[in-house]
């Protein structure tokens, strides 16, 4: 996977831009914008973890997944403490750890395929020599 996660730069900038626009228009207070940003980050992290649990259950035992879950819990805890900034940090950490888990799982699948291909090639080589 060679995806570029946008919210570290583009998405965050867009959100900040939207929040600034809403703030200058008088619709959104700075505190509410931070809270909204934390909730959005937690929601994305939760979605990533749920996706792994649903589609790749074997990966749930990986250390990175455990750390992603732990980071999500920390983010939710920080949100409850109204520490929205820390909640966003933990949520983004949880999301990238989940992405790392998915990538590692895909790498494991690719390794299996490579090993199978290598084995098949070796078998074919032996068969060719034995003919």
């Amino acid at each position, binding site marked *: *996977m*060679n*995806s*570029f*996660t946008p919210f*570290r*730069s*583009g998405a965050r900038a867009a959100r900040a831009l939207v929040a600034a626009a809403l703030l200058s228009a008088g619709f959104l207070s700075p505190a509410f914008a931070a809270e909204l940003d934390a909730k959005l980050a937690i929601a994305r992290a939760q979605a990533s973890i749920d996706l792994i649990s649903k589609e790749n259950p074997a990966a749930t035992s990986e250390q*990175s997944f455990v750390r992603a879950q732990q980071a999500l819990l920390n983010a939710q805890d920080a949100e409850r403490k109204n520490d929205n900034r*820390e909640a966003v*940090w933990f949520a*983004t*950490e949880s999301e*990238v*750890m989940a*992405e*790392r888990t998915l*990538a*590692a799982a*895909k*790498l494991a699948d*690719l*390794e299996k*395929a*490579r090993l199978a*291909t*290598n084995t*098949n*090639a070796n078998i*074919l*080589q032996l*068969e*060719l020599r034995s*003919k």
Partner: protein
Amino acid sequence: MVSVSKAKAPAFAAILAAALAGCASTPSQNPQISAIEASLAAAYGNKFTAEHGQADLMKAESSLAAARIADRKGRNGEMQHEITMAENYVALGRIHGDQARTIAETAFERDRQDQIRLASRDRDVRRANNRADMSDAEAAAANAATDSANNRADASQADAVAANAATDNANDRAQNSRADAITAKNDARVANDRALSSQADAVAANAATDNANDRAQNSRADALTAKNDARIANNRALSSQAETAVAVAGQQSAEAKLAAMQSQLSMYDMKYTALGATLVLRDVMFTVDSSLLLPGSITRLEPLIAYLRASPSTSVTIEGHTDNSGTAAHNNTLSLDRANSVRRALTADSSVSNAMETKGYGQDKPVATNATVSGREQNRRVEITLQ
């Protein structure tokens, strides 16, 4: 965001890292940041990670830069967050690089498989070609054999044509022969019918012959019977002739004997009958009312004794007779005694062996009247019959 091609990404990343490092006035004294920097540099040193994890490494650099700023400003929480992010992005870049490397290796293995399969197919093709060459050679040989066989087949076909022609001729001849055979069969049937008729006639003739044979056999049997009868009759005739001859001879002999007897017994009172000659001896030979012979009577019997000695086959029957004087029983006894006395006198000579029989009739067979003396003398007698 800076857009670069994948081919130029590693070079670009290296330049970027150098630029970032250059931006930093002094190398970080934070060991966590230093460790991430080292890890990031190592990641850039890997070809696959630098190329395929480029975006991740750039994010890591961004986070690392933010961490340095937070570190300089003493915002420890933010620094820890950025270090964590940088660490995860570096790891993610390595994973993406490893994925690319694995995909490349898998492709390489697939290529190797294909090459092996290709080599195998090449070898199979070579072998198939060799087999094809061999098959071609075999086919050529087979073709040659086929040509030869075809030639032989042509020759055989020609032979077959000739044979068919011969067969047709033979069939024609056979058909003609069959026609002749049918005609012959019909003739044979007619002849057979005739033969059957002749056979019936023959059977009838045989029956007639059998009848004739039976009759002939019967006739032969009759003839045989007649012949036997004739033979028997002939035998009988012969026997009769023999008997006749015997009889004649006997008669002649008897006549001779009679003639001899007549000459030898001429002194006796003789009378001749069919049974023979009978001598009559009067009672003067015996004493009165006695069977004792008088002495002179023995002498009178001597010619008879001489005759009997010469004719031993002559049988003698001696019968005694009396007159009617006395009782009949007495006369019967007297007559038998007198016959026996004559018999004893005749057999006193041991040379006389003739068969003799004696009978006593008493007064039952008189030859003359008993009323007179001469008549009673004639009745007192002994009659000796010679046979």
